[in-house]
């Protein structure tokens, strides 16, 4: 498989291999000269139809550290504003010469659709509320790096907040459970998916009841831009029930960690300054993001793709 679209398409063995490859890339990033010629001559186009800071810069850095050339594209500064379609945009860029498209779009399924229009590798950098597979890879790596071991067997992970609108949660749940962790989603029923049949998770509506026995507290951003009706009565009430504050941090298990995919809503889901808590891995996630994306780019463009097979 030459694309990286959805954690569901990647089996456990391939996922662990990608984590091992991420560890190798992390070693490259610790070198005095963190750059290797592996993808010299390859062109990676980052095509973002939706705003992003860290994902885009992270992919950009990852591609450059592997010596690929990077073609940047931002919808707001492009001919999309003149009415050019996604398909025409992709075909235009491909005519210039692209080996991999890194695509973000506000609608689920766009990266998968682009595979039909292009011979290049397609990497999903977030599509609507569907998937964000490189985030799941960097999150899994960050957890594995912290707790050690080959996978996440035996770890209890609470994903807290706006699961309904979260592509990060969907990808993370698939990756964490494939790697052996048990996952509980926590939030008000309005912010959890209406139907969790088939989801390998437990559901909980009280943050305080999971805080003491989770190894990982994974806070999600309250996605105000995706909300078209009132999902929470007020931000203050949400913060009180589901925000991470000092008192909740103090009740966390010894050795447990806090994660957040960013960007944070301070005073909403994050009521504590992460710089003030010793067990926050939030910046570690950002650092590891570059290594994880290098692993994906190298696997697709330099090492023949990801072996097929679900499971």
């Amino acid at each position: 498989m030459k694309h990286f679209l959805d954690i569901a398409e990647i089996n456990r063995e391939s996922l662990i291999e990608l984590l091992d490859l991420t560890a190798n890339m992390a070693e490259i990033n610790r070198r005095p000269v963190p750059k290797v010629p592996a993808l010299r001559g390859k062109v990676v186009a980052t095509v973002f139809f939706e705003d992003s800071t860290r994902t885009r810069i992270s992919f950009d850095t990852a591609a450059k550290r592997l010596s690929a050339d990077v073609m940047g594209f931002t919808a707001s500064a492009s001919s999309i504003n003149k009415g050019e379609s996604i398909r025409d945009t992709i075909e235009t860029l491909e005519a210039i010469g692209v080996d991999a498209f890194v695509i973000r779009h506000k609608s689920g399924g766009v990266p998968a659709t682009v595979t039909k229009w292009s011979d290049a590798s397609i990497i999903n950098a977030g599509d609507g509320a569907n998937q964000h597979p490189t985030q799941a890879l960097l999150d899994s790596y960050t957890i594995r790096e912290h707790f050690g071991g080959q996978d996440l067997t035996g770890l209890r992970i609470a994903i807290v907040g706006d699961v309904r609108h979260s592509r990060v949660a969907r990808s993370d749940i698939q990756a964490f459970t494939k790697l052996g962790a048990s996952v509980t989603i926590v939030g008000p029923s309005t912010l959890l998916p209406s139907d969790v049949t088939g989801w390998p998770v437990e559901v909980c509506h009280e943050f305080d009841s999971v805080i003491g026995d989770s190894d990982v507290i994974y806070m999600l951003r309250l996605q105000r831009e995706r909300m078209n009706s009132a999902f929470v009565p007020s931000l203050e009430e949400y913060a009180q029930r589901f925000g991470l504050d000092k008192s909740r941090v103090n009740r966390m298990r010894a050795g447990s960690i806090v994660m957040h995919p960013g960007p944070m809503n301070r005073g909403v889901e994050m009521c504590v300054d992460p710089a003030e808590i010793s067990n926050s891995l939030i910046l570690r996630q950002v650092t590891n993001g570059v290594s994880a994306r290098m692993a994906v780019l190298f696997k697709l463009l330099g090492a023949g793709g990801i072996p097929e097979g679900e499971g």
Partner: protein
Amino acid sequence: MSSTVVEVFSAQDVIKSITRIAHEILERNADGETPVLIGVQSGGTWIAKAIKEALDRIKSDNAILCGAIDAGMHRDDIGMRPVVAAHSSSIPVDLSGATVILVDDVLFTGRTVRAALEALNEYGRPRCVQLAVLVDRGHRELPIRPDFVGKNIPTKATDEVSVSADGVFVEAR
């Protein structure tokens, strides 16, 4: 067609070669700085460690440093064949000005050594790099020659050569 595996080097021969290479390294670098041994991932790393142990027995000052270099990201055949980069580099010291002994198990086309030399450069500019290999099987495709050789073994380009502490085996294909 059944393939045949021939032992060309016994476990005992491997130990003897490693000890001899250690002596040659000392002789060559008698008046210079203490060399740093760097094994090429993955086949060269155990040999680098074995040479270090042999040097420690001879010199007994334990001053020899030993590391590993992964050349996978510097290869010239990336994309032409599946690459499994399952090993990483660990370089114990800044290599600027150092005498480096690059160690691998088998010297064949020379392409791995070229990639390793390029990878080494990212850790500093060594004063010089010398190459030690347990087996030189010929068929060079680049102008690269070893400084220390355990054994020269004539092979066909299609033969498979495998090296371990148990010996050196050639399988005709």
